[in-house]
């Protein structure tokens, strides 16, 4: 049993959830989207919220296609993303590789992963790659922030304590660009050490690589497509500002792997352009 006591509430909408957060005046709260982070943290006494908000009735799950964007509810699970016809192909590739078994994909959500901002997770880098924007709601205000600005540090985002993530939109222009996604893991079932999302422009040249897992937050490496492989490596190392180290890999290892993986991603784009199977 979780040791400390809390209030439990199931708001019916994002507005209701924000209204409850507004009353907390800085007291610690936790939001259950899928619960796969937050419930074990409470069980292990690592987190002692005064209020637990369960989003299950808030209507925040689902994927829909709008004129110029795909809109994803933060409480959409990996399994729902995998099955929706509106989910961008790049994101489908990302969610298919989430480990922990179908049990985790059935419960873990895109919004939970974004808000938790774990450096080694797939979603932060994927959102930056897709140029997603995040819609945040407080009791009496809303704002939209770009994924590239949302992540501040390991487990730190722009979210204020009284704000919730209400939706994620991914511009449809993504469809026109070529993407590749790769990650380095030590075993099939393990967490990613480094993730690489690569965007190519219409001419099939790798222009932008988003590196996740190697730093505390995802970072972009811009390319003009003319670089040698050595230069690609140097660009990656130069772009790395907040190195990340944990029990799975040291910062040096991650730095090295990020360089090699980026070279591979650029190669994969070139191969795709030439019609080879990647």
């Amino acid at each position, binding site marked *: *049993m979780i040791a400390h006591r809390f209030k*439990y509430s199931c708001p019916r909408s994002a507005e209701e959830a924000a209204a409850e957060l507004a009353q907390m005046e800085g007291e610690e709260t936790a939001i259950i989207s899928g619960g796969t982070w937050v419930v074990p943290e409470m069980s292990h006494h690592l987190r002692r919220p005064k209020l637990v908000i369960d989003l299950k009735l808030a209507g925040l799950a689902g994927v829909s296609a709008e004129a110029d964007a795909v809109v994803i509810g933060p409480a959409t699970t990996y399994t729902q993303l995998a099955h929706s016809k509106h989910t961008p192909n790049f994101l489908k590739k990302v969610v298919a590789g989430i*480990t*922990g078994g179908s049990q985790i994909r059935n*419960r873990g959500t895109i919004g939970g992963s974004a808000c938790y901002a774990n450096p080694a997770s797939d979603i932060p880098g994927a959102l930056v790659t897709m140029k997603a924007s995040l819609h945040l709601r407080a009791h009496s205000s809303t704002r939209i922030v770009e994924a590239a600005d949302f992540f501040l540090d390991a487990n730190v985002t722009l979210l204020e304590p009284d704000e919730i993530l209400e939706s994620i939109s991914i511009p449809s222009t993504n469809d026109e660009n070529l993407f590749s996604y790769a990650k380095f893991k030590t075993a099939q079932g393990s967490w990613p050490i480094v993730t690489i999302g690569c965007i190519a422009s219409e001419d099939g040249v790798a222009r932008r690589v988003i590196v996740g897992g190697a730093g505390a937050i995802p970072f972009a490496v811009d390319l003009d497509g003319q670089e040698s492989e050595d230069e690609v490596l140097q660009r990656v190392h130069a772009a790395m500002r907040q190195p990340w180290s944990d029990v799975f890999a040291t910062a040096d290892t991650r730095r090295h792997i990020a360089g090699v993986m980026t070279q591979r991603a650029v190669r994969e784009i070139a191969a795709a352009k030439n019609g080879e199977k990647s």
Partner: protein
Amino acid sequence: MTNPQQNLPVNVVVNGVRHQVEVDPRLALVDFLREDLELTGTNVGCRTGDCGACTVTVDGEVVKSCLSLAVSADGSEIRTIEGFAGEGEELSPIQSAFWNEFGFQCGYCLPGMLFCTEELLGENADPSEADIRHAIDGNLCRCTGYHGIVRSVQTAAAATRTCNRKRVSE
């Protein structure tokens, strides 16, 4: 908002039996099943979501019950390993396959292995070895080294196919 100390009503159907109870919101689903309902076939391993020993289905979805609160399950239908075999069956074809192939030793991981096998065979009647390994990779077994489990799933798949063929030809 509720008072922190207050128990909350939970209405669930577990293995076909309805339970209308009040639970402490601090109770994890796995502890509710084991301690309040005395269904101890659902095991506690890591409480971090890594091992899969606490796997059950909630509204048909395979989940790890250490990762949810019991109160979150209000209104849902749950199956535990005790309800894995169908009515009138001692063991289901999947369980028989694990039994015959020596697919387990201590049995601690069985909730995850069985439910993930069932989910896999529901989507793919003829899985490859890679499909099987992917389907069970959210579950840790510390006895068998997984070979026996893979064999069990293959046998279960073959048995399910035969079963379905029989049903079609009947």
